[in-house]
């Protein structure tokens, strides 16, 4: 196989890794206000539910995000023109994504640092917005990449901002958003216990039906214009995996349900990359101006060295990341959430609460 093809596959693998993994923690973050509400019977507070949800993604989200950074770095190294055209061209959406990732990370890390309802509400807002925005915008971006955008003979994107927000791309954004929400809800169902688990499963099922409808329409439109036999098969498998996952969720099999959405996101992303190949950024102005695995690539030397590095280290990363998931495999119940407050986090509110109890 050509080195450029190997690297196209590796970049696809990195994006798949990013979407299947961070997809669920975006979903969990965005669902905080929905699944994290006080229960009717008052057995578990909304705050405890939110902390169960955040605790479920706590050890993982940062490692998941590195898949994105590695995809960015690897694109820079293996296909410098792809990196340059994509990120200078999709400037404002990328800016929004970066801002979202910043406020989200801060929201997650700082939320528990001050014991005040107002503080937590603000941090939650940052987590919710910071999760939903990238979940939506990556779908918009990838639909545009696969369907082609105006790129001139100098490999420069010349379409402007609004051009990126075409209806099909927006549909693609809704697909990734609803898929990630489903993925996140099923992750909560898999990783928590109590009423939250059941609520999450029920919500995942409802969101999943919506995601399935949108995804089928979107995959159909995308593959009808650029698809190949293989990409159609992968897209079909993605749809089957989603339906199987939802069936499993209905049957109360959370592990299989999560595996279903995991496979759906992976297969759908793979179908996009197959449809894209051998282009990496097709030009809608003139096919001759498209960026391809050949004209966008680095030298054979760089690709060769990077291949060795990737072949040696990717399995190691997969090994220790999987081990993290194994280590924190237990379901999180309400009673796992500590009630004591760190002395530095104490506020007037803490004092009132402690005084009252």
């Amino acid at each position: 196989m050509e080195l450029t093809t190997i690297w196209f596959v590796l970049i696809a693998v990195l994006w798949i890794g990013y979407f299947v993994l961070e997809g669920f923690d975006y979903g969990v973050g965005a669902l905080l206000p929905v699944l994290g509400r006080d229960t009717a019977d008052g057995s578990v507070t909304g705050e405890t539910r939110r902390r169960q949800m955040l605790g479920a993604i706590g050890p993982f989200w940062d490692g998941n995000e590195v898949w994105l950074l590695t995809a960015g770095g690897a694109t820079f190294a293996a296909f410098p023109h792809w990196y340059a055209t994509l990120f200078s061209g999709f400037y404002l959406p990328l800016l929004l994504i970066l801002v979202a990732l910043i406020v989200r990370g801060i929201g997650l890390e700082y939320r528990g640092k001050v014991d005040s309802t107002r503080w937590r509400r603000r941090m939650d807002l940052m987590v919710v917005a910071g999760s939903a925005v990238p979940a939506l915008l990556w779908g918009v971006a990838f639909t545009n990449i696969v369907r082609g955008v105006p790129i001139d003979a100098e490999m420069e994107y010349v379409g402007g901002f609004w051009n990126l927000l075409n209806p099909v791309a927006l549909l693609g954004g809704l697909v990734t958003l609803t898929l990630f929400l489903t993925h996140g809800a099923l992750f909560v169902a898999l990783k928590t216990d109590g009423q939250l688990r059941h609520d999450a499963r029920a919500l995942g099922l409802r969101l999943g039906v919506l995601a399935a409808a949108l995804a089928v329409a979107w995959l159909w439109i995308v593959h009808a214009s650029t698809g190949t036999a293989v990409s159609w098969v992968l897209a079909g498998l993605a749809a089957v995996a989603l339906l199987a996952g939802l069936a499993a969720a209905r049957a109360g099999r959370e592990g299989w349900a999560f595996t279903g959405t995991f496979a759906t996101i992976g297969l759908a992303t793979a179908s996009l990359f197959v449809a894209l190949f051998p282009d990496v950024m097709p030009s809608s102005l003139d096919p001759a101006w498209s960026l391809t695995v050949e004209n966008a690539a680095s030298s054979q030397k760089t690709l060769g060295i990077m291949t060795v590095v990737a072949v040696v280290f990717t399995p190691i990363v997969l090994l220790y990341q999987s081990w993290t998931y194994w280590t924190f495999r237990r379901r999180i119940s309400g009673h796992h959430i500590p009630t004591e407050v760190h002395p530095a986090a104490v506020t007037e509110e803490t004092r009132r609460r402690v005084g009252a109890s």
Partner: protein
Amino acid sequence: MDALDLARWQFGITTVYHFFFVPITIGLSLLVAVMQTRWMRTRDPQWLRLTKFFGKLFMINFALGLVTGIVQEFQFGMNWSDYSRFVGDIFGAPLAIEALLAFFLESTFLGLWLFGWGRIPEKLHLSFIWLVHVGTVLSAYFILAANSFMQNPVGYTINETNGRAELTDFLAVLTNPVQLVTFPHVVAAAYMTGGAFVLAFAIWHLWRTGTPAVDKPMYRKAAKLGAWTVLVASLVVIGSGDVQGKVMTEVQPMKMAAAEGLYEDVPEGVGAPFSIITVGTLDGREEVWALTVPKLLSYLATGSLEGAVEGIDHVQERYELTYAGSELTAAEDYRPVVPVTYWSFRLMMGLGFAGMAIAAAVLWALRGTGSRTGESRLEGHRMWAWAGALVLFMPLLANSFGWIFTEMGRQPWLVMGLMTTQTGVSPGTTTGEVLTSMVVFTLLYGALAVVEVGLTLRYGRAGAEQVPEDPSFDPAHRSDDDAFLFTY
């Protein structure tokens, strides 16, 4: 201002900001690892309390370093797309390797360390913070290799067909002479910063009369650890910086000349002086008054007290002849902004030395045991409160000025001798776009700085929390139904 100026400002703002948190992360991860190791060895609960205390402060700072680092990974493509196209072959590789080798290691094991208290066997748990530290140092290596290529391109060839720089020798890129001296310099400076961070909060609690007497010995331990770290690391910073100056003179003579504002050549056998402070005209050409050390510049640049040093005007002349022919390298002026270069160089060194001096003073004050011990000597004296506040910022700002010197002193080059900064900017992005992103990042970073400093002070002031009499974090001693020791 056009898109080029704005892109440069944005890079400067976001990078200097990001680099406040990087050295704290590198330095503090080491010191927290040392504290936890001491606790495991001695079972002295004070070391555990310090581990937890500085671990919390570490996380508050790490979070900002992490999120602002994401911007760095994509900023080259957004604002510097022609640069990315030109050097992606060489520059992209260390960035990708940094993510694959270092970022995964840091983030995964930090998650394990943070959420693993009481859920993972103690020894394994200790190894995680060490792995985090290894990740931060690996990360430094690869990103500095990429930067060193910009200071002194090696291991490449220019492909005549596509006009791009292409890799010929990756080992040469990783062992660039600039890299070999920059890496120890930067990592040691990060240790200084981490040491100063620990020292600052420890001094503050030693100075404060409200600190319980039983806690004073604990903060004394921390102060000594921090101060010794600053002192030892600063020796490495000085040693590596000395060699760095000589390497820099060879590969970037203009930067060394600008560091002194030396316009005219000083021939062999004379010895160029180094000015500590100069009052002069704005471009540094005319000197009104200066405090100088004879022959020091010659030593810094060449290692010999009477070595020849090339002046700015001569380098300018040479570069005009060499580089005027090509679009990528042609520039009217090959001189950096001399006052910025001059003063950032001095501020870097001055602040570094001042931090070192405070650390030495603290160690002196903490000497001795018995009734009149070090901790009582610091208590209540306002001078020490100031020392604590200042020592925190000295290495931190010295880092910033060091980078401002390195990067501004390289101008007008983006890649020394190969590409000027103005030719690297994204041709397709509009001024409005770059302005938007610059304003958004600046405002966002500003707001986050307020939150971050607020939390750091809040947790720093609260001091080390109490721990149970005989704490065990062994999961074997805990039930699966126990509440977690840490969760969001």
